[in-house]
Protein backbone atom coordinates (compact mmCIF):
# COMPACT_ATOMS: atom_id res chain seq x y z
CA UNK A 1 0.00 0.00 0.00
CA UNK A 2 1.13 3.46 -0.87
CA UNK A 3 1.33 5.02 2.56
CA UNK A 4 4.05 2.66 3.74
CA UNK A 5 6.55 4.67 1.78
CA UNK A 6 5.43 8.16 2.79
CA UNK A 7 7.51 8.58 5.92
CA UNK A 8 9.85 5.66 5.31
CA UNK A 9 13.16 7.41 4.71
CA UNK A 10 12.48 10.16 7.24
CA UNK A 11 13.73 7.85 9.99
CA UNK A 12 16.66 6.15 8.25
CA UNK A 13 18.73 9.02 6.93
CA UNK A 14 21.72 10.27 8.96
CA UNK A 15 20.17 13.74 8.58
CA UNK A 16 16.99 12.76 10.42
CA UNK A 17 18.44 13.40 13.89
CA UNK A 18 19.43 16.96 13.05
CA UNK A 19 17.44 19.72 14.73
CA UNK A 20 14.28 20.26 12.66
CA UNK A 21 14.28 24.03 13.35
CA UNK A 22 17.75 24.35 11.86
CA UNK A 23 16.80 22.22 8.87
CA UNK A 24 13.63 24.19 8.16
CA UNK A 25 15.28 27.60 8.60
CA UNK A 26 18.29 26.62 6.46
CA UNK A 27 16.10 25.22 3.70
CA UNK A 28 13.87 28.30 3.72
CA UNK A 29 16.88 30.63 3.47
CA UNK A 30 18.35 28.49 0.71
CA UNK A 31 15.06 28.42 -1.26
CA UNK A 32 14.65 32.19 -0.93
CA UNK A 33 18.17 32.73 -2.26
CA UNK A 34 17.47 30.35 -5.17
CA UNK A 35 14.26 32.26 -5.92
CA UNK A 36 16.39 35.40 -6.31
CA UNK A 37 18.85 33.81 -8.77
CA UNK A 38 18.60 34.64 -12.46
CA UNK A 39 21.98 33.48 -13.70
CA UNK A 40 22.87 29.96 -14.69
CA UNK A 41 26.31 29.66 -13.03
CA UNK A 42 25.22 30.00 -9.36
CA UNK A 43 22.20 27.79 -10.11
CA UNK A 44 24.44 25.00 -11.37
CA UNK A 45 26.77 25.34 -8.35
CA UNK A 46 23.71 25.15 -6.06
CA UNK A 47 22.54 22.04 -7.90
CA UNK A 48 25.93 20.36 -7.37
CA UNK A 49 25.79 21.31 -3.69
CA UNK A 50 22.33 19.74 -3.38
CA UNK A 51 23.48 16.56 -5.11
CA UNK A 52 26.28 16.29 -2.54
CA UNK A 53 23.70 16.63 0.24
CA UNK A 54 21.54 13.97 -1.45
CA UNK A 55 24.50 11.58 -1.39
CA UNK A 56 25.24 12.44 2.25
CA UNK A 57 21.59 11.98 3.23
CA UNK A 58 21.59 8.39 1.90
CA UNK A 59 17.97 8.71 0.83
CA UNK A 60 17.49 6.18 -2.02
CA UNK A 61 17.83 7.92 -5.37
CA UNK A 62 14.63 6.32 -6.67
CA UNK A 63 12.65 8.08 -3.94
CA UNK A 64 14.17 11.46 -4.84
CA UNK A 65 13.43 10.90 -8.53
CA UNK A 66 9.82 9.88 -7.80
CA UNK A 67 9.21 12.98 -5.69
CA UNK A 68 10.88 15.20 -8.28
CA UNK A 69 8.62 13.74 -10.98
CA UNK A 70 5.63 15.50 -9.37
CA UNK A 71 7.09 18.92 -10.15
CA UNK A 72 8.72 17.92 -13.45
CA UNK A 73 5.78 18.66 -15.82
CA UNK A 74 5.37 22.14 -14.30
CA UNK A 75 9.10 22.83 -14.67
CA UNK A 76 9.14 21.66 -18.29
CA UNK A 77 6.00 23.57 -19.26
CA UNK A 78 7.23 26.77 -17.61
CA UNK A 79 10.68 26.47 -19.20
CA UNK A 80 9.30 25.78 -22.68
CA UNK A 81 7.04 28.83 -22.59
CA UNK A 82 9.98 30.82 -21.19
CA UNK A 83 12.12 29.67 -24.12
CA UNK A 84 9.45 30.92 -26.49
CA UNK A 85 8.88 34.27 -24.79
CA UNK A 86 12.30 35.24 -23.37
CA UNK A 87 14.97 32.98 -24.82
CA UNK A 88 17.03 29.88 -24.01
CA UNK A 89 19.07 31.45 -21.20
CA UNK A 90 16.04 32.46 -19.13
CA UNK A 91 14.44 29.10 -19.87
CA UNK A 92 17.47 27.19 -18.56
CA UNK A 93 17.62 29.43 -15.49
CA UNK A 94 13.92 28.81 -14.84
CA UNK A 95 14.33 25.05 -15.16
CA UNK A 96 17.38 24.98 -12.86
CA UNK A 97 15.68 27.28 -10.35
CA UNK A 98 12.65 25.01 -10.04
CA UNK A 99 14.85 21.89 -9.95
CA UNK A 100 17.12 23.34 -7.23
CA UNK A 101 14.33 24.44 -4.93
CA UNK A 102 12.29 21.28 -5.44
CA UNK A 103 15.36 19.19 -4.65
CA UNK A 104 16.05 21.20 -1.49
CA UNK A 105 12.46 20.67 -0.36
CA UNK A 106 12.61 16.94 -1.14
CA UNK A 107 15.77 16.60 0.96
CA UNK A 108 14.03 18.40 3.82
CA UNK A 109 10.81 16.38 3.72
CA UNK A 110 12.43 13.01 3.18
CA UNK A 111 14.80 13.38 6.14
CA UNK A 112 12.41 14.92 8.67
CA UNK A 113 9.68 12.90 10.41
CA UNK A 114 6.39 14.80 10.49
CA UNK A 115 6.25 15.06 14.28
CA UNK A 116 9.64 16.79 14.31
CA UNK A 117 8.13 19.34 11.95
CA UNK A 118 5.30 20.01 14.34
CA UNK A 119 7.70 20.63 17.22
CA UNK A 120 9.65 23.05 15.08
CA UNK A 121 6.50 24.82 13.87
CA UNK A 122 5.36 25.20 17.47
CA UNK A 123 8.71 26.79 18.29
CA UNK A 124 8.21 29.15 15.33
CA UNK A 125 4.98 30.33 17.08
CA UNK A 126 2.44 28.78 14.72
CA UNK A 127 -0.99 28.93 16.49
CA UNK A 128 -1.78 25.90 18.68
CA UNK A 129 -5.03 25.15 16.85
CA UNK A 130 -3.16 24.70 13.55
CA UNK A 131 -0.55 22.45 15.20
CA UNK A 132 -3.13 20.17 16.80
CA UNK A 133 -5.09 20.10 13.54
CA UNK A 134 -1.96 19.09 11.63
CA UNK A 135 -1.26 16.39 14.21
CA UNK A 136 -4.76 14.92 14.09
CA UNK A 137 -5.15 15.23 10.33
CA UNK A 138 -1.83 13.50 9.72
CA UNK A 139 -2.88 10.67 12.01
CA UNK A 140 -6.29 10.24 10.35
CA UNK A 141 -5.02 10.36 6.76
CA UNK A 142 -3.48 6.88 7.06
CA UNK A 143 -6.66 5.42 8.51
CA UNK A 144 -8.66 6.82 5.61
CA UNK A 145 -6.16 5.79 2.95
CA UNK A 146 -6.61 2.23 4.22
CA UNK A 147 -10.36 2.66 4.03
CA UNK A 148 -10.11 4.11 0.54
CA UNK A 149 -7.99 1.16 -0.61
CA UNK A 150 -10.56 -1.28 0.71
CA UNK A 151 -13.38 0.59 -1.02
CA UNK A 152 -11.36 0.71 -4.24
CA UNK A 153 -10.87 -3.06 -4.12
CA UNK A 154 -14.58 -3.54 -3.53
CA UNK A 155 -15.45 -1.18 -6.41
CA UNK A 156 -13.16 -2.99 -8.79
CA UNK A 157 -14.47 -6.37 -7.66
CA UNK A 158 -17.89 -5.18 -8.82
CA UNK A 159 -16.53 -4.25 -12.22
CA UNK A 160 -15.83 -0.49 -11.85
CA UNK A 161 -13.14 0.64 -14.29
CA UNK A 162 -12.78 4.35 -13.53
CA UNK A 163 -14.81 5.61 -16.46
CA UNK A 164 -13.55 7.23 -19.63
CA UNK A 165 -14.76 10.85 -19.54
CA UNK A 166 -16.69 13.52 -17.68
CA UNK A 167 -19.82 12.32 -19.50
CA UNK A 168 -19.80 9.00 -17.65
CA UNK A 169 -22.48 9.68 -15.04
CA UNK A 170 -22.20 6.28 -13.37
CA UNK A 171 -18.45 6.63 -12.82
CA UNK A 172 -18.81 10.11 -11.37
CA UNK A 173 -21.63 8.99 -9.10
CA UNK A 174 -19.53 6.10 -7.79
CA UNK A 175 -16.59 8.40 -7.10
CA UNK A 176 -18.79 10.97 -5.36
CA UNK A 177 -20.42 8.29 -3.20
CA UNK A 178 -17.01 6.94 -2.24
CA UNK A 179 -15.88 10.40 -1.18
CA UNK A 180 -19.17 10.97 0.65
CA UNK A 181 -18.87 7.65 2.43
CA UNK A 182 -15.36 8.56 3.62
CA UNK A 183 -16.72 11.76 5.12
CA UNK A 184 -19.63 9.92 6.78
CA UNK A 185 -17.39 7.27 8.29
CA UNK A 186 -14.85 9.85 9.39
CA UNK A 187 -17.55 11.94 11.00
CA UNK A 188 -18.85 8.99 12.98
CA UNK A 189 -15.34 8.09 13.99
CA UNK A 190 -14.62 11.65 15.17
CA UNK A 191 -17.09 11.25 18.00
CA UNK A 192 -15.50 7.99 19.19
CA UNK A 193 -12.04 9.45 18.98
CA UNK A 194 -13.15 12.51 20.87
CA UNK A 195 -14.53 10.35 23.71
CA UNK A 196 -11.33 8.32 23.77
CA UNK A 197 -9.24 11.47 23.94
CA UNK A 198 -11.38 12.93 26.69
CA UNK A 199 -11.03 9.81 28.82
CA UNK A 200 -7.25 10.13 28.55
CA UNK A 201 -7.32 13.68 29.81
CA UNK A 202 -7.23 15.65 26.55
CA UNK A 203 -7.78 19.37 27.07
CA UNK A 204 -6.89 20.67 23.64
CA UNK A 205 -3.17 20.96 24.38
CA UNK A 206 -0.63 18.63 22.79
CA UNK A 207 2.43 17.87 24.94
CA UNK A 208 5.54 15.96 23.98
CA UNK A 209 8.40 14.59 26.05
CA UNK A 210 11.45 15.25 23.94
CA UNK A 211 13.17 18.63 23.90
CA UNK A 212 14.76 20.28 20.92
CA UNK A 213 18.48 20.89 21.19
CA UNK A 214 20.96 22.51 18.83
CA UNK A 215 24.24 20.58 18.52
CA UNK A 216 27.49 21.35 16.67
CA UNK A 217 26.43 19.28 13.66
CA UNK A 218 23.33 21.47 13.31
CA UNK A 219 25.57 24.51 13.15
CA UNK A 220 27.58 22.84 10.38
CA UNK A 221 24.37 22.06 8.48
CA UNK A 222 23.16 25.65 8.78
CA UNK A 223 26.58 27.03 7.84
CA UNK A 224 26.66 24.87 4.69
CA UNK A 225 23.22 25.94 3.49
CA UNK A 226 23.51 29.60 4.41
CA UNK A 227 27.08 29.75 3.06
CA UNK A 228 25.90 28.27 -0.23
CA UNK A 229 23.02 30.77 -0.41
CA UNK A 230 25.31 33.75 0.20
CA UNK A 231 27.88 32.47 -2.27
CA UNK A 232 25.24 32.12 -5.02
CA UNK A 233 23.98 35.64 -4.41
CA UNK A 234 27.54 37.02 -4.39
CA UNK A 235 28.33 35.27 -7.67
CA UNK A 236 25.21 36.79 -9.21
CA UNK A 237 26.06 40.25 -7.86
CA UNK A 238 29.55 39.93 -9.33
CA UNK A 239 31.34 40.04 -5.95
CA UNK A 240 32.79 36.60 -6.63
CA UNK A 241 33.89 35.87 -10.18
CA UNK A 242 33.39 32.24 -11.09
CA UNK A 243 33.55 30.80 -14.55
CA UNK A 244 32.52 27.24 -15.26
Amino acid at each position, binding site marked *: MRHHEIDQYARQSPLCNFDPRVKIASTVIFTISVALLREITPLIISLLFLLLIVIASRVPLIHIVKSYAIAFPFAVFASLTMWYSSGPEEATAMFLR*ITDSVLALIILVSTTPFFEFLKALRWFKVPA*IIISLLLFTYRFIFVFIDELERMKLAREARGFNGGKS*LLNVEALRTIAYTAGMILVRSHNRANNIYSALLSRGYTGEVRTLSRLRIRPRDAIFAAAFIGMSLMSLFIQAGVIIWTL
Partner: protein
Amino acid sequence: MHIPDGLMAPVILAIGWVIALAVIAFSVFKVNKKIDEKTVPLMAILAAGIFVAQMLNFPIFGGTTGHLIGAALAAVLVGPYAAVIILTVILVIQCFVFGDGGLTALGLNLTNMAVIGTFVAWGTYKLFPKKLEKVGVVAAAWLSVFAAAFACAFELAASFSLSGGAYGIEAAISLPSMLGYHAVIGIGEGIITGAIFLYLAKVAPDIIKTRKPAEEVTT
Protein backbone atom coordinates in the same frame (compact mmCIF):
# COMPACT_ATOMS: atom_id res chain seq x y z
CA MET B 1 -2.31 23.89 -9.40
CA HIS B 2 0.37 23.49 -6.72
CA ILE B 3 2.94 26.12 -7.65
CA PRO B 4 6.55 24.92 -7.16
CA ASP B 5 9.40 27.12 -5.90
CA GLY B 6 11.47 29.06 -8.39
CA LEU B 7 8.64 29.82 -10.79
CA MET B 8 7.23 33.11 -9.48
CA ALA B 9 8.93 36.48 -9.03
CA PRO B 10 10.07 37.14 -5.44
CA VAL B 11 7.74 40.16 -5.09
CA ILE B 12 4.70 38.06 -6.00
CA LEU B 13 5.80 35.37 -3.53
CA ALA B 14 6.00 37.97 -0.76
CA ILE B 15 2.55 39.37 -1.59
CA GLY B 16 1.14 35.84 -1.53
CA TRP B 17 2.54 35.27 1.98
CA VAL B 18 1.14 38.57 3.26
CA ILE B 19 -2.39 37.87 1.98
CA ALA B 20 -2.38 34.23 3.12
CA LEU B 21 -1.06 34.97 6.63
CA ALA B 22 -3.48 37.84 7.17
CA VAL B 23 -6.55 35.83 6.14
CA ILE B 24 -5.47 32.68 8.00
CA ALA B 25 -4.76 34.70 11.17
CA PHE B 26 -8.22 36.27 10.93
CA SER B 27 -9.81 32.84 10.34
CA VAL B 28 -8.00 31.35 13.35
CA PHE B 29 -9.26 34.29 15.41
CA LYS B 30 -12.86 33.76 14.16
CA VAL B 31 -12.81 30.00 14.77
CA ASN B 32 -11.08 30.35 18.17
CA LYS B 33 -13.92 32.58 19.36
CA LYS B 34 -16.54 29.84 19.22
CA ILE B 35 -14.32 26.83 19.74
CA ASP B 36 -14.98 23.96 22.13
CA GLU B 37 -12.71 20.94 22.76
CA LYS B 38 -14.67 19.01 20.15
CA THR B 39 -13.91 21.36 17.28
CA VAL B 40 -10.30 20.32 16.67
CA PRO B 41 -10.85 16.55 16.24
CA LEU B 42 -13.88 17.25 14.07
CA MET B 43 -12.10 19.70 11.79
CA ALA B 44 -9.12 17.36 11.59
CA ILE B 45 -11.35 14.49 10.54
CA LEU B 46 -12.84 16.64 7.80
CA ALA B 47 -9.40 17.80 6.71
CA ALA B 48 -8.20 14.20 6.50
CA GLY B 49 -11.40 13.21 4.71
CA ILE B 50 -10.94 15.94 2.10
CA PHE B 51 -7.23 15.15 1.82
CA VAL B 52 -8.07 11.54 0.99
CA ALA B 53 -10.98 12.55 -1.28
CA GLN B 54 -8.41 14.58 -3.26
CA MET B 55 -6.65 11.32 -4.08
CA LEU B 56 -9.71 10.09 -5.99
CA ASN B 57 -9.17 10.80 -9.66
CA PHE B 58 -12.11 11.46 -11.94
CA PRO B 59 -11.86 10.90 -15.70
CA ILE B 60 -11.90 13.98 -18.00
CA PHE B 61 -11.33 12.66 -21.52
CA GLY B 62 -8.77 10.72 -23.52
CA GLY B 63 -7.09 9.21 -20.47
CA THR B 64 -6.48 12.46 -18.57
CA THR B 65 -7.79 12.73 -15.04
CA GLY B 66 -8.40 15.51 -12.56
CA HIS B 67 -8.97 15.53 -8.83
CA LEU B 68 -10.90 17.53 -6.26
CA ILE B 69 -9.50 20.64 -4.58
CA GLY B 70 -12.24 20.49 -1.98
CA ALA B 71 -12.37 24.20 -1.09
CA ALA B 72 -16.05 24.42 -2.04
CA LEU B 73 -16.88 21.18 -0.22
CA ALA B 74 -15.21 22.39 2.98
CA ALA B 75 -16.88 25.81 2.71
CA VAL B 76 -20.43 24.47 2.32
CA LEU B 77 -19.90 21.89 5.07
CA VAL B 78 -18.36 24.03 7.84
CA GLY B 79 -18.47 27.65 6.67
CA PRO B 80 -15.68 29.81 5.23
CA TYR B 81 -13.41 30.43 8.23
CA ALA B 82 -13.14 26.81 9.35
CA ALA B 83 -12.74 25.87 5.67
CA VAL B 84 -9.77 28.24 5.28
CA ILE B 85 -8.06 26.50 8.22
CA ILE B 86 -8.89 23.03 6.89
CA LEU B 87 -7.49 23.82 3.45
CA THR B 88 -4.41 25.41 5.08
CA VAL B 89 -3.73 22.23 7.02
CA ILE B 90 -4.12 20.12 3.88
CA LEU B 91 -1.76 22.33 1.84
CA VAL B 92 0.85 22.43 4.62
CA ILE B 93 0.84 18.63 4.86
CA GLN B 94 1.09 18.31 1.08
CA CYS B 95 4.08 20.65 1.11
CA PHE B 96 5.92 19.21 4.14
CA VAL B 97 5.18 15.51 3.67
CA PHE B 98 4.96 15.06 -0.09
CA GLY B 99 6.95 18.07 -1.31
CA ASP B 100 3.90 18.98 -3.42
CA GLY B 101 3.95 22.77 -3.87
CA GLY B 102 6.95 24.87 -2.92
CA LEU B 103 8.12 26.35 0.38
CA THR B 104 8.38 29.97 -0.73
CA ALA B 105 5.37 29.40 -3.00
CA LEU B 106 3.27 28.06 -0.11
CA GLY B 107 1.95 31.59 0.50
CA LEU B 108 0.62 31.77 -3.05
CA ASN B 109 -0.79 28.26 -2.94
CA LEU B 110 -2.58 29.13 0.30
CA THR B 111 -3.88 32.38 -1.22
CA ASN B 112 -5.19 30.66 -4.37
CA MET B 113 -6.74 27.52 -2.96
CA ALA B 114 -7.38 28.10 0.76
CA VAL B 115 -8.35 31.78 0.61
CA ILE B 116 -9.69 32.60 -2.87
CA GLY B 117 -11.10 29.12 -3.51
CA THR B 118 -12.93 29.05 -0.18
CA PHE B 119 -14.34 32.57 -0.16
CA VAL B 120 -15.42 32.50 -3.82
CA ALA B 121 -17.19 29.20 -3.13
CA TRP B 122 -18.87 30.54 -0.01
CA GLY B 123 -19.95 33.79 -1.71
CA THR B 124 -21.42 31.91 -4.68
CA TYR B 125 -23.17 29.37 -2.46
CA LYS B 126 -24.75 32.17 -0.40
CA LEU B 127 -26.05 33.92 -3.55
CA PHE B 128 -28.44 31.08 -4.29
CA PRO B 129 -31.79 30.85 -2.45
CA LYS B 130 -32.45 27.77 -0.28
CA LYS B 131 -34.58 26.16 -3.02
CA LEU B 132 -31.71 26.21 -5.49
CA GLU B 133 -29.14 25.14 -2.87
CA LYS B 134 -27.94 22.15 -4.91
CA VAL B 135 -27.37 24.26 -8.02
CA GLY B 136 -25.54 26.69 -5.74
CA VAL B 137 -23.14 23.98 -4.54
CA VAL B 138 -22.27 22.96 -8.12
CA ALA B 139 -21.82 26.58 -9.22
CA ALA B 140 -19.74 27.34 -6.13
CA ALA B 141 -17.43 24.40 -6.79
CA TRP B 142 -16.92 25.27 -10.47
CA LEU B 143 -16.36 28.95 -9.76
CA SER B 144 -13.94 28.28 -6.89
CA VAL B 145 -11.70 26.20 -9.17
CA PHE B 146 -11.95 28.75 -11.96
CA ALA B 147 -11.18 31.66 -9.61
CA ALA B 148 -8.18 29.85 -8.11
CA ALA B 149 -6.88 29.07 -11.61
CA PHE B 150 -7.44 32.67 -12.66
CA ALA B 151 -5.48 33.89 -9.63
CA CYS B 152 -2.67 31.45 -10.47
CA ALA B 153 -2.56 32.55 -14.12
CA PHE B 154 -2.63 36.20 -13.06
CA GLU B 155 0.30 35.64 -10.67
CA LEU B 156 2.25 33.93 -13.45
CA ALA B 157 1.57 36.80 -15.82
CA ALA B 158 2.39 39.42 -13.17
CA SER B 159 5.65 37.61 -12.34
CA PHE B 160 6.57 37.67 -16.02
CA SER B 161 5.91 41.34 -16.62
CA LEU B 162 7.30 42.59 -13.27
CA SER B 163 10.60 40.73 -13.70
CA GLY B 164 11.04 41.65 -17.35
CA GLY B 165 10.67 38.06 -18.49
CA ALA B 166 12.86 36.19 -15.99
CA TYR B 167 10.07 34.59 -13.95
CA GLY B 168 6.52 33.36 -14.47
CA ILE B 169 4.72 32.69 -17.73
CA GLU B 170 3.59 35.27 -20.27
CA ALA B 171 -0.08 36.29 -19.95
CA ALA B 172 -0.80 35.28 -23.57
CA ILE B 173 0.08 31.68 -22.64
CA SER B 174 -0.72 31.41 -18.93
CA LEU B 175 -4.25 32.83 -19.05
CA PRO B 176 -5.77 30.71 -21.85
CA SER B 177 -4.00 27.48 -20.82
CA MET B 178 -4.75 27.71 -17.08
CA LEU B 179 -8.33 28.93 -17.59
CA GLY B 180 -9.13 26.50 -20.40
CA TYR B 181 -7.80 23.49 -18.49
CA HIS B 182 -9.45 24.41 -15.20
CA ALA B 183 -12.79 25.34 -16.78
CA VAL B 184 -12.97 21.63 -17.64
CA ILE B 185 -11.50 20.40 -14.32
CA GLY B 186 -14.05 22.65 -12.61
CA ILE B 187 -16.93 20.74 -14.21
CA GLY B 188 -15.66 17.58 -12.54
CA GLU B 189 -15.23 19.42 -9.25
CA GLY B 190 -18.78 20.79 -9.61
CA ILE B 191 -20.41 17.45 -10.37
CA ILE B 192 -18.52 15.56 -7.66
CA THR B 193 -19.01 18.25 -5.00
CA GLY B 194 -22.71 18.47 -5.86
CA ALA B 195 -23.10 14.70 -5.70
CA ILE B 196 -21.21 14.46 -2.37
CA PHE B 197 -23.41 17.23 -0.98
CA LEU B 198 -26.60 15.45 -2.11
CA TYR B 199 -25.32 12.17 -0.70
CA LEU B 200 -24.46 13.73 2.66
CA ALA B 201 -27.80 15.57 2.82
CA LYS B 202 -29.52 12.21 2.33
CA VAL B 203 -27.31 9.90 4.40
CA ALA B 204 -25.80 12.05 7.16
CA PRO B 205 -27.34 15.54 7.22
CA ASP B 206 -25.71 16.41 10.56
CA ILE B 207 -22.31 16.66 8.83
CA ILE B 208 -23.48 19.81 7.06
CA LYS B 209 -22.74 22.32 9.82
CA THR B 210 -23.71 25.42 7.86
CA ARG B 211 -27.40 24.55 8.03
CA LYS B 212 -29.56 25.33 11.01
CA PRO B 213 -30.55 22.30 13.15
CA ALA B 214 -34.25 22.59 12.20
CA GLU B 215 -33.45 22.17 8.51
CA GLU B 216 -31.49 19.01 9.13
CA VAL B 217 -34.59 17.13 10.14
CA THR B 218 -36.54 17.99 7.01
CA THR B 219 -33.95 16.85 4.48
